[in-house]
């Protein structure tokens, strides 16, 4: 793997670890996983129109984030339900649009050579997501504990929710080339779930989530290359192994 590739995947993993902390604490674990599926119709359409799949995925994910935000506010049904319905449909539609090897690559991830603009988008995008989580952590924490307490503290809760969902969608788009539509949600969730289990403070949670995400991604890429397997499943198996090890160590401790 090149240094550029390593920098890109590390930056993506850092963003995924941080964004995941709030997804897990907000009980969005399953929903987040499903949310990554909305990228598939975008990839399918991009391929059909001879555009870069990452662009199609990014547009679809950002639209998806706005859609669930709007639906949740309009209908007052839980965000889990909204995401579960919308994004399962997206997976079905996307599977109809993309076929064959393209579909397998889109679903499971296939790192290939990266263009200059992709490197720039990946690094800048990751930096933007990391900056968002770190600068907004106070608002995110208060809104997580109680939306009413957040409101009376002067936080624009609805806008914060939208920005968070967009940051989440952006993070998923950044990781698609490594993990694919099916598994990117897991890289956001599993490291954060491990961190939630082990940490005793917010800073601790951030550090552990980032550590697990970066370790799983970098180790997974090397291992997948040497085993000649798709990268996504290998990365997730490593992340899950760390998660289960954390369960054992905590229950013994």
């Amino acid at each position: 793997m090149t240094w550029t590739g390593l920098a890109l995947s590390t930056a993506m993993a850092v963003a995924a670890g941080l964004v995941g902390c709030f997804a897990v604490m907000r009980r969005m674990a399953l929903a987040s996983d499903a949310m990554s599926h909305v990228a598939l119709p975008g990839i399918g359409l991009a391929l059909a129109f001879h555009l870069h799949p990452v662009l199609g995925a990014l547009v679809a994910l950002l639209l998806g984030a706005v859609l669930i935000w709007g639906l949740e506010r309009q209908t007052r049904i839980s965000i889990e339900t909204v995401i579960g319905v919308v994004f399962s449909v997206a997976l079905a539609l996307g599977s109809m649009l993309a076929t064959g090897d393209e579909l397998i690559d889109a679903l499971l991830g296939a790192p290939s050579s990266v263009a200059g603009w992709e490197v720039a988008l990946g690094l800048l995008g990751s930096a933007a997501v990391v900056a968002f989580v770190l600068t907004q952590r106070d608002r995110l924490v208060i809104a997580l504990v109680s939306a009413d307490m957040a409101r009376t503290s002067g936080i624009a809760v609805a806008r914060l929710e939208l920005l968070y969902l967009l940051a989440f969608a952006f993070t998923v788009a950044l990781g698609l080339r490594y993990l694919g539509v099916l598994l990117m949600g897991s890289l956001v969730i599993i490291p954060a779930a491990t961190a939630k289990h082990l940490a005793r403070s917010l800073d601790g949670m951030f550090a552990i989530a980032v550590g697990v995400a970066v370790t799983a991604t970098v180790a997974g890429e090397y291992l997948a290359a040497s085993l000649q397997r798709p990268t996504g499943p290998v990365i997730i198996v490593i992340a899950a192994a760390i998660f289960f090890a954390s369960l054992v160590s905590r229950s013994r401790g």
Partner: protein
Amino acid sequence: MANALEVKALSVRFGNLEVLRDLTFSVPEGSALAVIGPNGAGKTVLFKALIGSLPHQGTVRWKQGTRIGYVPQKLDIERDLPITGRDMLHAKAAISGAARAEAARALDLVNLSEGVARQPIGTFSGGQFQRLLLAFALLGRPTALLFDEPTAGVDEPGEERLYEMIRRVQEAERLTVLLISHELSVVYRYATNVLCLSRERPCFGVPEEILTPERIEQVYGAPLKYHRHA
């Protein structure tokens, strides 16, 4: 005395259900308003309308420059969140532009030790958590405090201490307090005015007028025992 809050013809509907209808009352600055009423009478809904988190009709007018500290009744959060008391207080201090030293002062006001505040919030007892929420509400120099049943989940001696603390903080900081409570003896002692919500028409006045056995029976639909302090 100027009013901290003026409410006129406030109504809240959920679909066809009218939870609050045509409520009008005011809260003078520095006074304590107790809101009483049976379950389902709309006490929490009233508070949510007052802080602007529920759509409503009518007017809710806080005095200009009012900063609200809100202590909710219960929180729908998991017990195992890796968020400490300090994480919460520092977050509030940061967004309200308060110095971190103010977090220590707020902890002091509510008698919560630094050691406890350093623990994850899931390990707090009911009383400790209520005091943390009170400290959180006090950060950023609020001018009005809203308490939704501050002693829910707190044992009886703890309850007494918590009300004493609210009283102490109110006097020290000259705050306007709005409080939902089922403890009528507490209401009798602490409240400047009482607003009673019931399925019948609401009533508003000083405790001596509102907390009569006849009125209580009317509001709650049954006689209620409470200890009336002279």
